[in-house]
């Protein structure tokens, strides 16, 4: 029961209120006891001091002197004055300011009942035997009782207030929490019902609820983006595979009619399709896996030099030029093969889409928190209208529709960059067109 109570906000606040109440009760009880004891001691002390003074009188002047002292004190009586009773050995009263309700016995008496005028009272008394009689000095407990009552009612009020506040706070906090959570709940319900555009409302307070709402919204954005991506891919695949598959069918028809070249063409077409699938799977794999894979430290300078050396012969053979500007000792956390593939895609794009005589530069620079690898060329570039969608799957500049390729190369470059916590973007200067891969250090 208690364990369950802890789990709701209401329960937590109630438990805290109960704990505070218990503490108040304990403090109240202790304070009451201590005050009570101190006041009683004070009364005892006054009675003792007065008794000592009267005993001294008795030693000098006998009972008559005591009687006289009592009379003088009674004449000068005020609110705080003590009461006295002096009796002889037979119990007859010699001098008195009160009438005892019971016969006094020697020693301290905590609750000494007496009558004074019409009223009765209870006092703290010290009864002292004197030669020929007995002296009783009484301090009225009236004030003590009044203070006791005041203290008790004070703490009772505090306790009641504490409980009331605690339960009030519990109800209020519980209600507020439920109200905040119900907004999240409503959003979740709407999303379950199919409206993926719903987001948890925020109040900008940066409270824990607000931050939770922000986190949930970011999560929803991410999921929505992935869903969109998936939908886009399905559409793209359906659309972009239809053309080569239709062509394959035609070639097989021609082969069936006895065209000898058609089989070879169909074969190439099938290879092409497999290549598209390989690229799509690779992108999906990189997007799905990359972030969870353990990355090692890579000598990026060496990798870039390797890639340049690997492709330079093909560049030269096709009349292109490849220059490098690679500083030594660039290191980055990453997957060497994936980065090699990204660079390979960029280099092959230059080979495939730029005319002979084009010069490309593979360069790297280290900034404070990232390393940027750029492959630029002074070829014709890509019209701005096409540039925006260049990193999407199956995206190809209109001009390159006729050349080889599936428009998956840059999508993979981007997926690999994202997988490394970086990004890829077009870099455009006056005379050069290029792609930059940015990797965090």
């Amino acid at each position: 029961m208690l364990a369950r109570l802890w789990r709701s906000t209401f329960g937590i606040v109630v438990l805290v209120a109960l704990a505070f109440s218990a503490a108040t009760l304990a403090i109240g009880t202790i304070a009451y006891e201590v005050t009570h004891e101190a006041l009683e001691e004070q009364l005892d002390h006054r009675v003792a001091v007065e008794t000592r003074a009267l005993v001294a009188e008795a030693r000098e002047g006998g009972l008559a002197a005591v009687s006289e002292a009592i009379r003088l004190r009674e004449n000068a009586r005020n609110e705080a004055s003590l009461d006295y009773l002096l009796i002889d050995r037979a119990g007859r009263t010699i001098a008195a300011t009160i009438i005892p309700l019971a016969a006094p016995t020697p020693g301290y008496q905590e609750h000494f009942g007496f009558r004074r005028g019409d009223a009765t009272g209870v006092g703290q008394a010290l009864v002292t035997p004197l030669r020929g009689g007995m002296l009783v000095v009484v301090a009225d407990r009236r004030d003590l009782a009044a203070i006791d009552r005041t203290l008790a009612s004070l703490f009772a009020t505090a306790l009641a207030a504490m409980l009331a506040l605690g339960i009030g706070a519990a109800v209020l906090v519980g209600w507020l929490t439920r109200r905040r959570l119900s907004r999240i709940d409503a959003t979740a319900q709407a999303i379950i019902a199919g409206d993926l555009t719903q987001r948890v409302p925020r109040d900008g307070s940066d409270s824990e609820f607000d931050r939770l709402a922000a986190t949930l919204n970011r999560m929803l954005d991410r999921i929505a983006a992935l869903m969109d991506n998936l939908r886009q891919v399905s559409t793209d695949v359906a659309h972009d595979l239809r053309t080569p598959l239709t062509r394959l069918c035609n070639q097989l028809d021609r082969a069936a009619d006895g065209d000898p070249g058609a089989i070879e063409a169909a074969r190439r077409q099938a290879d092409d399709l497999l290549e598209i699938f390989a690229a799509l799977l690779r992108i999906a794999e990189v997007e799905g896996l990359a972030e969870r894979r353990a990355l090692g430290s890579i000598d990026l300078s060496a990798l870039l030099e390797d890639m340049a050396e690997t492709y330079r012969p093909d560049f030269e053979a096709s009349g292109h030029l490849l220059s490098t500007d690679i500083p030594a000792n660039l290191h980055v956390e990453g997957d060497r093969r994936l980065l090699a593939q990204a660079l390979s895609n960029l280099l092959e794009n230059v080979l495939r889409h730029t005319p002979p005589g084009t010069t490309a530069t593979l360069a790297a620079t280290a900034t404070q928190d990232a390393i940027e690898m750029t492959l630029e060329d002074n070829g014709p570039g890509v019209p701005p209208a096409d540039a925006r969608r260049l990193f999407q799957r199956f995206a190809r500049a209109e001009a390159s529709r006729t050349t080889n390729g599936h428009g998956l190369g840059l999508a993979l470059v981007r997926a690999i960059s994202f997988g490394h916590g970086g990004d890829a973007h077009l870099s455009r200067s006056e005379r050069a067109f290029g792609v930059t891969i940015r990797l965090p250090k």
Partner: protein
Amino acid sequence: MRILIVEDDADTRAFVAQGLGQAGHQVAVSEDGRDGLFQATGGGFDAIVVDRMLPGLDGLALVKALRAAGNVTPVLMLTAVGGIADRVEGLEGGADDYLVKPFAFSELVARLNALSRRPAPRGDDTHLLRVGDIILDLHRRTVERDSRRVTLQPREFALLAELMRNPRRVMTRTMLLERVWDFDFDPKTNIVETHLSRLRSKLNAGFDADAIETVRGAGYMIRGE
């Protein structure tokens, strides 16, 4: 060679079995993992071709069970999913090589040949590779053909070294991409062909005999005769 093929797809199984049979190998086939494991542990095979996805017992579990039983027959794993993680999992599970479907038959044969005659682990002192009249020094990174010094680029050197480590064996394009470039993807540009033709022209300068043989539709081989 006696080769066991464990493959559930009837078309692939028949295609591979027929091809290997025609190439002069003795072939046994199995349709599912359990039977495959049973046959494999029976022993007597020089190589085993296992599909990754199998009914009963999947290819990975089969290889693990085989290795756990102390059987070290070389295993070539076939898979339709060529993911990096997949490949690593397969190789760590005990497979010796990995081939992604669809594959060219010549690729399968070349890899099986390479597997069945894996060179014994070499001591580090053998830094000299010698095939025919070519001597390659891995430490000094020099190459001589018939005592004539040939100057190579680093990639060309690595390419020649890989071919010379596997004399008289066909090295396919993908094998060379994996081992020389550490590429696990297939670039569209013919980088292997380009580098190989440069290497070849440097090696052959002043000689009549071609140092590197091109095996049509399969790959390259250094024969050393």
